[in-house]
């Protein structure tokens, strides 16, 4: 039993996968209340699946990129669950999870994923589509949408970036938010194929913005 969570966007999304299929999934979209909502949502999803936390055998978490505070809530929750339950914790690039959902929904050619990075920027990555799935070719990175090269901006685009910047990213796909169900399916497949996943370590892509203070010349005693 795999629990999957993602808090790298304005959505809080949680799912349980039993190795064959997604058995329960819930999401709150458009929220900034990740701290409040995440654990109650996990509790509710487990309840819906008829499971107790102890029944879980692994936890998967979206590691961003995404707005930092929400992102950390998901990662620290996953890591703590891993510690408390004694189960492994896998990380997945949240943009990959969104790309996987886009593929699962029938996308057949190359596309872009662009999510809200605030400050007039998007987190983005580009994907090739093969018969088996998606393969990330560019990114993840953070940029002003209008400053992305034309050949990327011209691609069909999943993620809220299209809603926020329709002029720069005009070819919107219907997938707007990360789905934990898609993330769980992706992780289950990767584990079965023996592929390695990421550490549950945040992809910040930006440094904390703080300026070291200028030296004040020490007083002469």
């Amino acid at each position, binding site marked *: 039993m795999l629990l999957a969570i993602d808090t790298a966007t304005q959505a809080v999304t949680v799912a349980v996968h039993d190795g064959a299929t997604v058995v329960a999934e819930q999401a709150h979209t458009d929220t900034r*209340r*990740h*701290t*409040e*909502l*995440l*654990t*109650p949502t*996990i*509790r509710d999803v487990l309840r819906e699946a008829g499971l107790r*936390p*102890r029944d879980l055998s692994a936890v998967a978490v979206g590691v961003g990129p995404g707005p*930092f*505070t929400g992102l*950390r*809530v998901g*990662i*620290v*929750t*996953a*890591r*703590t*669950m891993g*510690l*408390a*339950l004694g189960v492994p914790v896998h990380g997945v690039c949240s943009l990959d999870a969104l790309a996987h959902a886009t593929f699962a929904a029938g996308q057949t050619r190359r596309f872009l994923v662009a999510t809200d990075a605030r400050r007039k920027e998007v987190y983005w990555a580009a994907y090739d589509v093969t018969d088996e799935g998606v393969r990330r070719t560019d990114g993840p990175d953070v940029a002003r949408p209008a400053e992305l090269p034309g050949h990327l901006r011209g691609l069909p685009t999943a993620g809220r970036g299209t809603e926020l910047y329709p002029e720069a990213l005009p070819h919107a796909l219907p997938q707007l938010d990360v789905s934990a169900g898609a993330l769980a399916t992706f992780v289950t497949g990767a584990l079965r194929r023996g592929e390695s996943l990421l550490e549950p370590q*945040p992809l*910040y892509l930006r440094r*904390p*913005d*703080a*300026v*070291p*203070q200028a030296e*004040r*010349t*020490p*007083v*002469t*005693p």
Partner: protein
Amino acid sequence: MSDATTDEPLVLGIESSCDETGVAFVRGTTLVGDALASSVDEHARFGGVVPEVASRAHLESMIPMLERASAEAGHRLDDVDAIAVTSGPGLAGALMVGVASAKALALCLDKPLYGVNHLAAHVCADVLDHGPLPEPTVALLVSGGHTNLLVVRDIASDVEELGSTIDDAAGEAYDKVARVLGLPYPGGPHIDRAARDGDPEAIAFPRGLTSRKDMERHRFDYSFSGLKTAVVRWVEARERAGEPVPVADVAASFSHAVADVLTRKAVLACTELGISDLQIGGGVTANTQLRELAEKRCAEAGIRLRVPRIRLCTDNGAMVAALGSQMVMRGLPPSDLALPADSSLPVASVQA
């Protein structure tokens, strides 16, 4: 949820409101395991706590601290009767890391969750050193982020604010003055050391909010920004005149001004409210002059003074576990799993 009401509950406490990641186990009023990581060094070159830097450090330290505290206590996480966590006040992004982790523990271990107030937890720290708090007690809390005068009638449920700083916290004033004197961050300990060789009466720095008019409107409030500005002006005037700055005298006189006004109002609160116990806590409690003056004035006024060891004065998980334990012992209902991190949680909300 398990019934946690017991005489000596084992409570795990998590603190992440500022730059310290603290995790501790408390049984009743006894500290049995205490782990602390600090990002203070990472903030030094910025001259103050950078919230994003602190939040990143909390994420990295949380699991190691849970493991270390558990090993030190000789308890598995599963053994605890309840989880307590600082849910505010503090830096929002920093609080969220601790709150999210605590909730995950509460869910996975099926234990009750207590969201506790950081300021009340500071006051409660001393039960680990000196046993149950006398109630009521006046409490003075002085740290880098807070300066509050409180009256505590019940540490788990009834804390009232008498006053607080209207501008800088006392520790913040220490840090800013240290910078002017060319001393490293955090400046409190450096000023304290420099002050040992100085004359506390050498320079008459102002005592904020002590004029007759201020004592009407701001009887139990504090203000340290005027004091800080006065020190800066005094030092700069010296420098302009090409004269050496007597660092020791400045440090001693500044510290004396801070300690004087802090203790004067705390003792006044005790006297006026007819309360004969004063509890002091927070990082600035380490200050030599503050301790000495508090002891002297309390002795003169017949007030019993309680000050915990320094390790329990600065931010830590032990005080959070200690307060959670008080709540469990009183049979208070736990917080909801939807508990938010509240950066401006009022001190009257002891439990969130």
